[in-house]
């Protein structure tokens, strides 16, 4: 499942840009590949991240995978719900399973992301 209106990375993160805030999560493809999530290591609020910089870790019973920042900026909010309910990512990765919000410092970094159609093509090519 790919949601229109969101932006995507090759590492299977999505970003929903509203003004200068990007809400970030991992895609349906990513959660499906990982399987049942058991733990999410959230970033710290206030931390500055560069585009493709390490944001956190999602862990399932069979793998642990880094989550990278789709845009450069400062973490303004993290989804604390995931601490006790990592399965929210499996259930609703584009909604209740969001990971954090980033205040975008480098607007140009958005241009490196794919739209839904291009991400769909990208997935077909994998």
């Amino acid at each position: 499942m790919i949601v229109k209106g969101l932006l995507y990375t090759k590492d299977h993160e999505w970003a929903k840009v509203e003004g200068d805030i990007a809400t970030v999560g991992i895609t349906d493809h990513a959660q499906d590949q990982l399987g049942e999530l058991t733990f999410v290591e959230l970033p710290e609020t206030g931390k500055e991240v560069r585009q493709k910089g390490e944001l956190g870790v999602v862990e399932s019973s069979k793998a642990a995978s880094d989550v990278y920042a789709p845009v450069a900026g400062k973490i303004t909010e993290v989804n604390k719900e995931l601490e006790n309910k990592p399965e929210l990512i499996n259930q609703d990765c584009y909604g209740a399973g969001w990971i954090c919000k980033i205040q975008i410092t480098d607007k140009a970094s958005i241009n490196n992301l794919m739209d839904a159609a291009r991400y769909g093509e990208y997935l077909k090519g994998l």
Partner: protein
Amino acid sequence: MPFIANTDEQRKRMLADIGLTREQLFSDIPKELLCGRLNMPDGLPEQEVRGILAELAGKNSIDLTLFLGGGFYDHFIPAAVYSIVSRSEFYTAYTPYQPEVSQGTLQAIYEYQSMICRLTDMEAANASLYDGGTAMYEAMMMALRVTGRNKVIIDTSVNPIYRVMIESYTKNLKIELVQTHCATGLVDREQILSKLDDKTAAVILQNPNFFGCIDDFGDIAEKAHSKGVLLAVSCYPISLGILKTPGAMGADIVTGEGQSLGMPLSFGGPYLGFMATRMKYVRKMPGRIVGQTLDRQGRRCFVMTLQAREQHIRRDKATSNICSNEALCALTALVYLSLLGKQGLRETAQLCADKASYAYKRLTAIPGVKPHFRAKWFFNEFVLDLPCEAADVIAKLIEKGFAAGFPLSRYYPDMKNCILVCVTEKRTKQQIGMFAEALESVL
């Protein structure tokens, strides 16, 4: 290995197959460390070789009465320990590689972890590490991961052998190792607090410390935590039978050498590193962890858990390069602790302390022998000032059948006349008396 079946011809063929000469095969080992020619004629019959080796082995002093500790201790080991751990069901691979089919091994490790938690008053323990020194190094690396900082404070009252290991491990890493100096036998609070800052990941301490003195690090834990710094404490497990636990002091990571829990003294080990922490840090803990769960039919069973921290899954981001454990040694510790029980461990610890206290009185009554520190609380080891160099006295006492203690000048150059004396529950009143007489006679 008393017999190797490979013939010269087979060796030649194996080398030819991989396309190497014998020299190339061992080229990664520095030349000076390779075994050169043995000081033994060629072509001796097996029986004669054995005779020569037995004669050489006979030069070792193996029947000394031990007053030597320094991190490795001569405790009594019930015969049942060896009988149980040498059962072939256990005496196989050192860590489970197809773990879930080895439910017995996993259960033993789970019970070992539970005992380490109860002993240290911590919430989660791993399946064990190589030894006390590497466990301390791993604790330090864990603190760096938890805090994202890179400065570590370590006190000179921590076992110098561990400190040498840590220095060697961290030589090429970007870690700022800051040493605080222990002058009184107890950790100098002011020095430590003055070095605590927002770059500090951990304070590493030991209790009882290398000089045998006992302390309560509760105040340090509190100050460290207020600056986001973790307290890592190395401890002597037998002492926990009577001493305040690191967990009760507020330690965040507890490690130690587990040899005293049923393993004989042996140069080079195998020894046992244990490690325990708070539940909130468990994902940052290195090593294997066994957990308890239910199978499909609702039966209690055991699994390797939180494996996503480990090398085979997490690759370069793993919590450490540790992908095994000291399973047989951990089992030994488990069996030893089970046999002693809570009361037995308490009595063993109390006997060590009482006998050490008696030895301290006897030895400090000898003219010229004085306690080195004013701090008067110790567990089963203490430092004495001798009227002459400790190393000389120790050499003379070996002739009289005693391993008198550890010459502190080996790691503390300004402590030339200082000897670290250890007394365990195995020493009798008579042996202590004879030791005091022998010491007096060589001064």
